[in-house]
Each structure stands twice: as structure tokens, then as C-alpha cells.
């Protein structure tokens, strides 16, 4: 099932940010595959960051001994303090085919971002060409991000354990010159049924 995450507030070819109002159990989740329609294409990304903007009023309320539930609900649902979700672009779909490369155009403001259902996540992760688009971001927790995505992808298919073994082989190829990093990543994607 597709769930709306929020609307685009800032975008570039490689990353975009989405504003949403409340955290729900299903969204937004670190490492989740998400998508947004851009003209005839669907642009895919991984949620790499979820942050709440600073607000002096929230700080003041947080310091109180007693906070009424109505205050909490008001601050979370009504006040214009959006939760900002950062998304790393990892590919796009054109004419039905999934491409693990940067899209020609980024989404525009207020476009809606959706989560990808399990079937689509499994389809997107059939190949591992997008690994490079994730691992090359030294300013992000790229290893954690990819590991989280791979764990979700494993859960989305029946042969999850074998999927992770294949993913590990691809990582070994990409990170052959950085064994410490490879070791850390492989530990993070170890299968646990």
C-alpha cells in the first residue's frame, strides 16, 4: 500500500526535502524507498534523514513539569512546525523500466511523496546498481542508510537471506579496497530471521 509521506519543499537532482506534519508508525522511516511523480517518470529515493525544526515555543513547553495532552496534540498537529524529511535520489522509472541513475529533472515544490509497497521495493532492489549512488555520499550516514534499505528489501521477499548474500557480494566488489568499511556494512545486513 502506498502511503503519503508529505510534499516537496526543496529539491535538486540528487536530493530533495519533504515537509510533513506528524510522525506515524509507518512513515517516515529511515532507509525506506519512496517515490514521487515527475512528469511521466517516477523518481525513487531513500529517506536518509527525519528532523524537526527548532522552535522556541516547543522548547518552552518541553521544560514544563506538566504538559497537557491537548497542548501536545496542538503542537504536533496544528502548529506550522513541519517535520522535514530528507531524501536521497537513487533512480527513476521510465516507460515501466527502473533505472538506477539520476533522473533528468528533480521534483518540484509541493509534489507528493509516497512510500513504495513491498512489491515495488522488491522490484527496485532486483539489481544493485543504485549502491554507488548511496555509498558515494560521505556527508550522509550512507552505510547505515544502505543497510537499512537492504534489510527492508530482504523482508519484502521470500528469499530474503539469499538476497542479502547477493547484496553482500556486490558490496564486496564495490568496497574491495576498504575492508574495514565493508566489514561494518556486512555486519549491518547480517540475516536474522
Amino acid at each position, binding site marked *: 500500500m502506498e502511503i503519503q509521506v508529505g510534499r516537496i519543499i526543496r529539491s535538486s537532482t540528487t536530493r530533495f526535502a519533504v515537509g510533513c506534519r506528524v510522525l506515524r508508525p509507518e512513515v517516515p522511516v529511515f532507509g525506506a524507498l519512496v517515490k514521487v511523480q515527475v512528469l511521466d517518470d517516477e523518481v525513487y529515493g531513500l529517506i536518509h534523514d527525519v528532523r524537526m525544526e527548532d522552535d522556541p*515555543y516547543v522548547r518552552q513547553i518541553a521544560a514544563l513539569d506538566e*504538559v497537557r495532552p*491537548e*497542548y501536545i*496534540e496542538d503542537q504536533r498537529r*496544528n502548529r506550522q512546525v513541519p517535520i522535514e524529511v530528507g531524501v536521497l535520489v537513487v533512480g527513476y522509472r521510465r516507460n515501466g523500466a527502473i533505472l538506477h541513475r539520476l533522473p533528468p529533472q528533480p521534483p518540484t515544490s509541493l509534489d507528493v511523496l509516497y512510500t513504495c509497497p513491498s512489491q515495488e521495493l522488491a522490484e527496485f532492489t532486483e539489481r544493485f546498481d543504485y549502491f554507488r549512488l548511496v555509498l558515494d555520499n560521505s556527508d550522509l550516514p550512507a552505510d547505515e542508510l544502505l543497510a537499512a534499505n537492504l534489510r527492508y528489501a530482504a523482508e519484502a521477499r521470500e528469499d530474503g537471506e539469499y538476497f542479502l548474500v547477493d547484496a553482500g557480494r556486490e558490496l564486496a566488489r564495490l568496497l574491495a579496497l576498504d575492508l574495514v568499511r565493508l566489514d561494518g556494512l556486512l555486519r549491518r545486513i547480517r540475516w536474522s530471521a
Partner: protein
Amino acid sequence: MTLELNKVTPQIDHMGHVLAGRAAHQGRVLPAAQALLHAFAEAQGELCLVAESEPGQRLRCASPGDERLDGAYPTPALPDKVTIVAADGSQIYPDRHGIAFYYAINIGSIVFRHGSAQAPEVSTEPKLCYTDDELYPGGAPVSGDLVGAERTLAEMRALAQVTLAEPDGGPPRLALGDGPLLIWLQRADLPQGRQERILADYLDCLDRLRIGGATVSGFVSRPHSAEVVALLYLAQLEPSARQQVKSLAETEYRGLTDRALFSDLNPGERSALFVRGTAANLDFRDRGHTVYFFYLNTGLDLARVEVPEWIARDPKRLDLAHAAVYDQCRCNNGYPYVLTRADELAVILGEEREALEGMIMQALARHDLALPELSRKAQQKQAARWRRRR
């Protein structure tokens, strides 16, 4: 050039000296004023005569209610469920140097269901005013005073409308306004007839709230009035001496406020009820809405809470206003939560005004009007101040 702080340093130093002297003076006279409060605590009849006398009217003295003047009334129990409604407004004043001559009023309102654990309902109601009647009432360009009065009326209308939309048989309802309940239109530069219409509409709202069974109050933060102080000062004088007093500022009680007088109240306690002493209260009295007030220790501040007569004379609803306002302040730094939020909803930020004026410019262009621009004066000011804004 900018504000050369070195040139104001001596003035600042002198200002500190003056303020310290004023504080010391008030510290000296306050015990005497508080002693008068106790001395006249049960002299309601005598004080009423003083307030109604010519000097009492001149000094805008408050009148006592039925309670002991020096009474401190603890916070009553708050019902488990109460619906608290607040409304506040902001405006863009008309500016003949702007891109177009218009003004705007934005009203924010909140319905806070105490005890429900639900998120409050919030809404805003913006109104753009640009018709000839709105901009040139009585033929002259609209003034800031009139915009302020229209905003006050819009706040009360929203308060009444939103409060009365809540079911009568549900939890008790409190409509809480920001500022005095008693509006003061006489000083405003309002065209003929407009003042009467605004007042009549405002009082109509109070009528509707009374008929609808709601509780109403106005919250005045850090009040500066001295209506009770003036009453006590006059009361201690011989009747002949009272005639000589032209203003409280000429007496040793200058600068002493009611807020200081009631500074002994403990958190949650309210003072006795008094009747506002300004002449405008006569208009309210004629419609059965004589405005009363009490002082309330909100926990971190002393505020004035105003209620109409039909609340002042109804102990149950007076208790509701007292308890609910204090509860709102208790968890919000001494100021009602709903008023903080109503203000936040209503306020028109600079960037919002810029966006609005961008849309106005586009609308004018679509109607083949020359692209509007700021007046030469505004343009030059903007250019010259550019560096200062960086």
C-alpha cells in the same frame, strides 16, 4: 548614520536614575495604599459615592463590587471538561506609500477542549479591505484608529461565532478575548456614525453570548491602570479636598498601579470584583454589559480579567472564568495558552505581507493596470536602508 549609542549613554544613565527614583517612591507609598485597601474593605457604599462623584468620574475611579475589597479568592475547581475559545487579530495598516491603498485584517481563533486530550481546532479568517466604502469612510482616507476598531470588532465577532457554534448542552464554554472587554472608541478618529455602529455590533455579540449561555472574559496582560488606586486616594481625602485633584499624576500616588496594589495575591488567587471606571462603561451598562474586573495572580504575573455584569453576578460562571484562565496561564509561562496560539494564528509576518502584495501586483497587471510601485519616498527609504538591513 545610525543610532550613535555613545550620544545616548548619558541619557540612558539618567533614565536609570529616574526609574530607580520612581521605583523607590512607589515602594514608599505602596504600603499606605494597601493600608487604605484594608481600611475601606467593607465601605462599599461610601466608595460607590466617591466613584460616582465628579472627581471620581474625572479620575476614572473603579467602583467596588459586593465583595470585601482586600479579599483574596483562591482558585475554584475547574470542571473536568471545558471548551475554551479564543480569538485574536492582526492587521496590515493602510499605507499610501505602498503598492496599493488597502488594508487587511486577519483573525485567528482556537477551540481548546480542556480534558478531551484532543488537538484543538484552529482557523483563520483573513479579510482584504479595498472598496471605496472601506477605504474612504465619510469621504476621508481610512485611519489606523478605524482599522484598529474594526479589528477589535472582528475579534469579538469571531469569538461569538466560534463559541456559539459549540453545542449548548456540552461542556461549559468560555470565550476569552485578548485585551480589555471594554472597548474605548471615543479617542479614535472615527467618522460620523461608524463609532456607533462598531459599538452596537460589539454589544450585539455580547448579547448573543449571554443568550447563548457562554462565559465571556477579556485578559489584560501587565495592566497599567490605577482605577482602584485612584478610588482609594480620593476616598481618604476630605470631600472638599477631592475637588482639587485634577489627576492622579499630580498626587503622591503618581505611577502607582492597581497591579502593584494587588501584588500580595498568591498564585491562582483573584482580587475582589470592581466595576471599570471609564465613561465608555456607560454604553455597556445601558445594554446590561457593565464591565467588571478582578486581578489574578497567573503564577508569574498579575493580570486583569474583565467580565460583563452577567458573569460577575453568576458565581458559577465567574468561578469558571477564574479557574479556566488560571489553568491556561499555569502551564504557559503566566499567559493563557489559547491567546498565545490565537495570536500566532493571526499574526501577519513580513514575508506573508510580501507574498500578498506580490499577488496584488499580479492581479493589477492582469487587469491591464500599470505595474504598481512604492511611492518615491518609500523607494528612496528602501534604497537608503538597504545596507542597514543586510
